[in-house]
């Protein structure tokens, strides 16, 4: 074994290893010339640096540059509301499935009741999410039957005080248009399913 080892102990392997680093170094400059100033801080430069063809340095200089997140990216839930005649109407019916499915149990819902009859009405009086506890698993959004709670794309939520980390209904609310803008494919699919279901319901009524 030791004889064998001595046979190749000439440092060629080390030189090869250094060659890899050197090649990497050169390739970065070649790419810089090839892109001519567009390798950094441009969408195509960022896309190139996270593609399979990238050579040389592949670092994305956050926060100057940001990698666009994919549609399925999930970071903290939000509640969807629709705007009708200047009124805000949450899609949530306070059915409680999200609170039940939530693995770390960070969702707290108070149902509202009709003051006259005392019966529950499908609109949450309060809705809290403790984002210190939330583990961004996305199960609430996955199992919500009303497409009322969805996962956000905004990951820059650092702050100085923990007391702001319990989000209430107002802080969780986002308009439908926001949802459609961050998840266009999902939104379209859900809208189509909704229209279809409505058509079936209308047909049944007739």
């Amino acid at each position: 074994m030791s004889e064998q080892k001595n046979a190749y102990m000439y440092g060629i392997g080390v030189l090869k290893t250094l060659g890899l680093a050197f090649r990497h170094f050169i390739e970065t400059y070649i790419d810089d010339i090839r892109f001519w100033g567009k390798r950094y801080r441009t969408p195509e430069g960022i896309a190139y640096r996270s593609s399979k063809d990238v050579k040389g340095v592949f670092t994305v200089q956050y926060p100057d540059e940001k990698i666009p997140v994919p549609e399925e990216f999930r970071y903290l839930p939000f509640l969807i509301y629709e705007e009708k005649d200047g009124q805000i109407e949450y899609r949530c019916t306070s059915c409680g499935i999200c609170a039940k499915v939530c693995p770390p149990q960070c969702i707290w819902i108070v149902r509202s009741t009709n003051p006259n009859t005392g019966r529950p009405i499908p609109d949450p009086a309060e809705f809290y999410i403790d984002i210190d506890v939330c583990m961004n698993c996305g199960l609430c959004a996955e199992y919500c039957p009303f497409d009322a709670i969805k996962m956000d794309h905004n990951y820059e939520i650092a702050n100085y005080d923990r007391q702001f980390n319990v989000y209430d209904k107002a802080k969780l609310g986002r308009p439908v248009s926001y949802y459609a803008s961050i998840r266009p494919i999902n939104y379209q699919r859900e809208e189509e399913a909704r229209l279809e279901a409505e058509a079936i319901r209308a047909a049944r009524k007739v």
Partner: protein
Amino acid sequence: METQNIALSSELTQLFPDVISRDERPSYEGYLIKPEHLIPTLKELRDNLGYDYLSSVTGVDYLPEGKMEVVYHIRKSTGGAPLVIKAQLDRQNPVVESIVPLYPGAEFQEREAWDLLGIKFEGHPDLRRILMWEGFSGHPLRKDWKEGYYEEDAKPFKSRWPVGHYVSAEEKNPLGMNVDFPAGFDPESWVPEPETALYAGLQKIERDDEETGIGTEQVIVNLGPQHPSTHGVFRMAVKLDGETIVGLKPVMGYLHRNHEKIGERNTFLGNMPYTDRLDYFNSMSNNFGYALAVEKLMGIKPPERAEYIRVMMAELTRIVNHLALFGFLMNDFGAYFTPFLYAFEERELILDIFEAVSGSRMMCNYFRFGGVARDIPDGVLEKVKGLVFDRLPRKIDDLNLYITNNEVVRHRAEGIGVLTPEQAIAYSCVGPVLRASGVPYDLRRAQPYSIYNRFDFDVAVRYHGDVYDRYLIRLDEMHQSLKILQQVLKGIPEGPIQEGKPQYIVKVPAGEAYGCVEGPKGELGFYVVSNGKPNPWRYHVRAPSFINLTPLETLCIGSKVADVVVILGSIDIVLGETDR
């Protein structure tokens, strides 16, 4: 293979009449053994029937029955399903003989069962707490033990809906009030003991230097817990004679969060994202193992496309893990962060795929019982194809070309930390550590799960058992994973990705199941006991990083102190999984 096992099992009750009986409880498998006959029976099984490879030892607390059960999963190192043997003990005084003399791989697992369940193993060489600390009161996995911030036995907690006024858990149970101490223990006046029990376990050999006649003193050095080379908060108490290791005891549990107790509180589905946090490099594999265990209980199978997606994700994960290991191992060799970042570049591209598919780079939470969470978005398969057919083979060859014959790497790795095949089997090593020692044992072949029997691939094996072979086998395995991925990408069918309708309440019938996958680090097993409720009664993780540490002392004795770092790196542990 299945029929052979059944044939053998019908023999078992005849071979050991009055000792072994079938476990007759509905949807339980295996045998009950009388605890007093455990050792002779296991010896017979090991020496004459080929069950030489202990897979897992754990305990279950059957509180209503007043029983404590020790569950052994024993395998043949030539393949096949495990033999499940259970010894039922009295819950008030659970004592059983230790099987460490027969299977040294049980050492840490029995310590864990003692620590968490309070089962005493007589004859264990070093029965101390392993995950909890010495000032801890009680055994947390017992069903009558309650944690701090305890609300209810099982989620979902009733306070969340319909009247969910937010209360922070710390307000109800302030910091300092959420701990219990053993009788007579005062945390204020407590001075940490000099850990005599730990250090006493280290070998003590006083010797005179033969040449000079000078008496040398051996010193104890603690490597870690806070040291970058330990890959997390892991500590090794080392006894040194000069630079040479003469004794080593691993100390772990600094990252312990009692994952298994949390798992028992969770619903079956709610536990899925928690498995991501075990070995956080390989959340897809962790999901896979857990999904298999619960699916076995439920008696469902995912549709064709979902199976292909699962295998694809599991193999991509293996590449991610081995790339990460490559980087960390090079760091341990002293090639500070340059090769590491080259490996991480490829890992990053695969994580982009995970993010596009599951929504998260590392905490994927992608598998569901009977399928996967969502179909692969448009364009992602093309990305995977680009990686698998074009970039990754090229890049892995690059790493191989530039590192494998590097003189420094060879000098530091060859002949260091040798594990013989006999030791590897005896110490219950799994995965690359076992295969680098010349034992071609891979669960994908030994006990095929999912659709692995359809693919053409080789079980990578190397024969020297040293650090260098443990490094090389990772490269081999990446090539084999690429081979599987290429077949997956050619064969992936269209179709549904979920069996039945996605359900947030999963109905899991009562029974037990052991689901295991060949994770990147080795056999990752989930032992789940259900009693028909929405939450598992017992949820145990057979963690490969934890059990692969059992032979660490054997590997290190005689090496230099700098080699310990490399040996530990080559075993490939992740503390999230070791400490659970």
